[in-house]
């Protein structure tokens, strides 16, 4: 079923991408709130909260086309290479930067991320590393965000809050609920001169929490 003809695959990828965006719009009326930045072409790393597999497609869907083409989500290779369909959607529709989470592999994730930045890409990353299933709004951040900010200090690190997906698509459910999803982009942060890892990651988590719209319930 899945063809190896590159032109056909590219057409299919565009079509699937359109369908995903239409579906996201129709079910969740997903909308971007540009609170701290303008939707203009600048190299950015969008770092977001992670509660559901729907987070990344939501952020990707609300980016204007020119920005979306420039933006690559950083995602787990073990998830996206599991089936031929995922191996098509992850790398070809979303243009993911795939990283290997297995501890025994010494392929360095940070090298791939930095290489993507040096090619001019913006990135979407989830610094919590895993989906957050608990009651706390955020899990502790992994070091990756700090390392990106230290190695490429010119890139804007944009806190990005995806609201409501814990209700729309909780882990383990198959049917998504059509509730309204809002993606809020906050004010960019950078690693300060001489700032250490823990202080920066605390500050980043704080910036992400401040991006969150007022709690309604």
């Amino acid at each position, binding site marked *: 079923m899945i063809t190896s003809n590159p032109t056909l695959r590219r057409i299919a990828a565009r079509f699937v991408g359109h369908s995903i965006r239409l579906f996201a719009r129709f079910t969740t009326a997903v*909308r971007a709130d540009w609170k701290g930045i303008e939707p203009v072409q600048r190299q950015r790393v969008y770092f977001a909260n992670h509660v559901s597999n729907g987070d990344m497609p939501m952020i990707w869907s609300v980016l204007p086309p020119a920005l979306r083409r420039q933006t690559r989500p950083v995602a787990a290779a073990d998830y996206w290479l599991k089936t031929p369909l995922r191996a098509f959607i992850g790398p070809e529709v979303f243009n993911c930067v795939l990283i290997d989470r297995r501890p025994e592999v010494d392929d360095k994730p940070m090298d791939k991320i930095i290489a993507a930045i040096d090619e001019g890409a913006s990135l979407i990353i989830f610094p919590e590393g895993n989906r957050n299933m608990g009651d706390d709004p955020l899990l502790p951040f992994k070091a990756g965000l700090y390392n990106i900010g230290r190695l490429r200090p010119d890139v804007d690190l944009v806190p990005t809050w995806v609201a409501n997906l814990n209700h729309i698509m*909780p882990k383990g*459910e198959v049917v998504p*609920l*059509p509730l309204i999803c809002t993606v809020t982009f906050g004010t960019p942060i950078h690693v300060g001169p001489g700032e250490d890892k823990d202080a920066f990651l605390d500050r980043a988590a704080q910036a992400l929490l401040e991006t969150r719209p007022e709690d309604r319930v």
Partner: protein
Amino acid sequence: MSTTGELILLTLGAFGVLIVMTVIGDAARLRMPQGRTSVMVETYMTRVQSWWAMVILLSLALLLGVAGVSLLFAVAGFAALREFLTLTTKSRADHWALALGFFVVLPLQFIFVGFGWAGLFTVFVPVYAFLLLPVISALRGNSDRFLMRVAETQWGLMIAVYCLSHVPALMTLNIDGYGGREVLLIAFLVIVVQAGDLVDLYFGRRFGRRKIAPGISPKTVEGVLAGLAAAVAIGAVLNWITPFGLWGAIGMAAAASTSGMAGNIVFAAIKRDRGVRDWSHLIPGQGGLIDQLDSVIFAAPIFYHLSHLVWT
């Protein structure tokens, strides 16, 4: 004149009003100094554009008949339910109950209306959905804030599905001597209620002094009375499209407009409670769908019931 002819006449009338409003807005734009824009004028023009879209959609649906109107209001109900349930209390245990609400209860209700099965669509949500959905939530075994969760979900279904479905349901009434022109009741209801709202909004903003529900709604006694008077006047003028006669049309317009304004106040209280200004950002310049339809949502079941009680 045929029903279609009357509908086309009403549509052209609405277009005429919108053209005048568009011209007024454009004239205000022209009066602005070169290169400047006024926030008030631009907001007004965004609203007028949204009205154009709504009038065109509703007219097309009315011309298509009961299937078209049911479909249009099913889509509106979906958007309204989405806005409502986004703000309600819920937990993971409610996932299936909420999914049933969206994907089973809502379509079934509008299908029952489309086929005119009044025995079903008048009891389906308040009896069957009311009793069944809490069971599904309870089976998942989470009692935390249970009553809040099921009560708020049921409120959402009553508002966005049950009440709203009474707009297309008007077409299924069988009024003696009306000759199958029931679709005109929808036009009458929507025109009277929305016109009353508009007059209340602008008159109240200018001349309103005494607040009706301080701390909840900006509505004033003066605005509401002016809106009601406008609704009654328009109802009287439009009595030729109704089966009610002059005094009946005046009474029905008053009942619809009053319940519509009551709905407006109730929805303002809910928004206050949840700390939001608008229900969503769906309609440019007007906020969410519920912001636009709140008065029609409250007026529709009452208008349906009174028509049924007195004229069938």
